[in-house]
């Protein structure tokens, strides 16, 4: 295998396989590397394994075999107490948002800062600023159950980007919003990407991918990642 210089790739999979419990391999022989600062769509039919692949990337799962290298660290060789530092460099928009229903919009978005021990004065300055930027200035103290689908999505995205992540992973972020909002979200991700964040968006919305055809694609088919030309 060719060894690339440090820092060139933000994440890299070598012959990764994944099975849930004793089930069959959902992913097998997955090998790819994402250059720092790149923008990708992750496509594949429903049930192909997009969410599973993202879970491996944000360290929500350990691979059954193979090697995952994140920020130049071999995850299998990394000590448990060092993992939070890696996770903090990743922003995730979960498929079903995973907002905490008992916390206000502001507190939800503040979470990544608070787990890092950022000063409360900083939190109170930056979080409302970002929420204003995504159009939720009037909903700082609303709880997620009172928000519309599109608003929840923007809260989830704000939470994913508040910590200025090096890697942004979004699982079907345009899943249940209309096309117009989906376009706006993608433009937001593009802005982040221009600031240096590597972006991976999982989607099975082919028309959306076609409209942003300038970006590279990772496609999952029969349990493995293929890069279509």
């Amino acid at each position, binding site marked *: 295998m060719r060894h690339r210089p440090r820092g060139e790739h933000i994440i890299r999979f070598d012959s990764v396989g994944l099975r849930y419990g004793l089930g069959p391999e959902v992913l097998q022989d997955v090998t790819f590397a994402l250059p720092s600062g790149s923008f990708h769509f992750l496509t594949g039919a429903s049930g192909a394994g997009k969410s599973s692949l993202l879970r491996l990337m*944000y*360290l*929500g*799962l*350990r691979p059954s075999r193979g090697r995952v290298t994140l920020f130049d660290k071999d995850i299998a060789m990394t000590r*448990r*107490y060092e993992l*939070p*530092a*890696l*996770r*903090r460099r*990743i922003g*995730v928009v979960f498929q079903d948002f*995973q907002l*905490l229903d*008992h*916390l206000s919009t502001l*507190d939800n978005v503040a*979470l*990544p800062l*608070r*787990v*890092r021990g950022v000063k409360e004065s900083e939190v109170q300055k930056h979080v409302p600023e970002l929420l204003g930027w995504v159009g939720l200035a009037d909903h700082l103290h609303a709880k997620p159950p009172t928000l519309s689908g599109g608003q929840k999505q923007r809260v989830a995205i704000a*939470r994913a980007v508040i*910590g200025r992540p090096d890697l942004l992973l979004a699982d079907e972020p345009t899943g249940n919003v209309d096309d117009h909002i989906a376009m706006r979200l993608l433009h937001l991700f593009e802005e982040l990407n221009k600031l240096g964040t590597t972006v991976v968006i999982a989607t099975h919305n082919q028309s959306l991918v076609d409209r942003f055809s300038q970006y590279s694609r990772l496609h999952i088919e029969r349990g493995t990642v293929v890069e279509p030309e």
Partner: protein
Amino acid sequence: MLSRRSDLPLKGDATSRFLPWLVALMVYLSAIAVAGVLVLAGLVERWDHDVSGTLTVQIQPVPGEAGELLTEDRVRQAAELMRRTPGILAARPLDKRQTLALLEPWLGSAEVVKDLPLPRLIDVSVDSSAQLDLGAVADRLGRMVPGATIDDHRVWLSRLINLSRTTEWVAIAIMLLIGFVTSATVVYATRTGMSVHRGVIEVLHLIGAHDDYIARQFADRAFSLGFSGGMIGLAMAVPTLTAIGWATRRVEGGFLPSLALPLSGWVVIGLLPVLAALLSMYTARLTVHGTLSRLP
């Protein structure tokens, strides 16, 4: 500590309702156990202090008309012999009236008692620093004065001390058991809480929270539940102990030494809620760390 921020909605959990009552009961029982041990230890120590410098010589009365005089004679002889023994400071024969006064709590003061063949007593003070061979003294006394025996208080005192030690061990075992039950309940409550809030914990974990960030929230909650429960237990224990103290003081009648709980005992009992809270806190913290270590 109670006002620290928490991302987990632990306030409404079912454990908030039962844990404080369990801790209250445990602190209540501990307080009673601690008080019992301390009172008994104090009692033994006081008796030890009162008794260690003394022993009693008993002379069996000689029956019959002339007996009275002969008995008097033997009492004098025995007292004389004791006074000449090195290590003995004083020997004071009690006359019949004094003996009767001593026995009054048990026998009453009826006229018939005066005619009973009561043994005569000699109160002996011992120099506690002298190495007195009591066995040898008793032998000599028995040979020289018929019917004389030495009643060493230390024999029954040592039994009393043994009893007190045993009680201490029983109380320590009870306390350990109470601590164990409390911990086990906190472990169970914490695990339940963690599974109720599994989703929240997973989000915190995935956005880069250290295990201790999550553990601390459960630990803070356990501390405040343990402390409030402990205060309830203490609030129940204080009136109970006061009532017991009051009741014993009424029956004492000068025959039992005072059964009051020393100040140090109240301090220990006052610390029990804090101990319960700390125990709950560390147990919760360890439980969360143990469970989280299984996450990827």
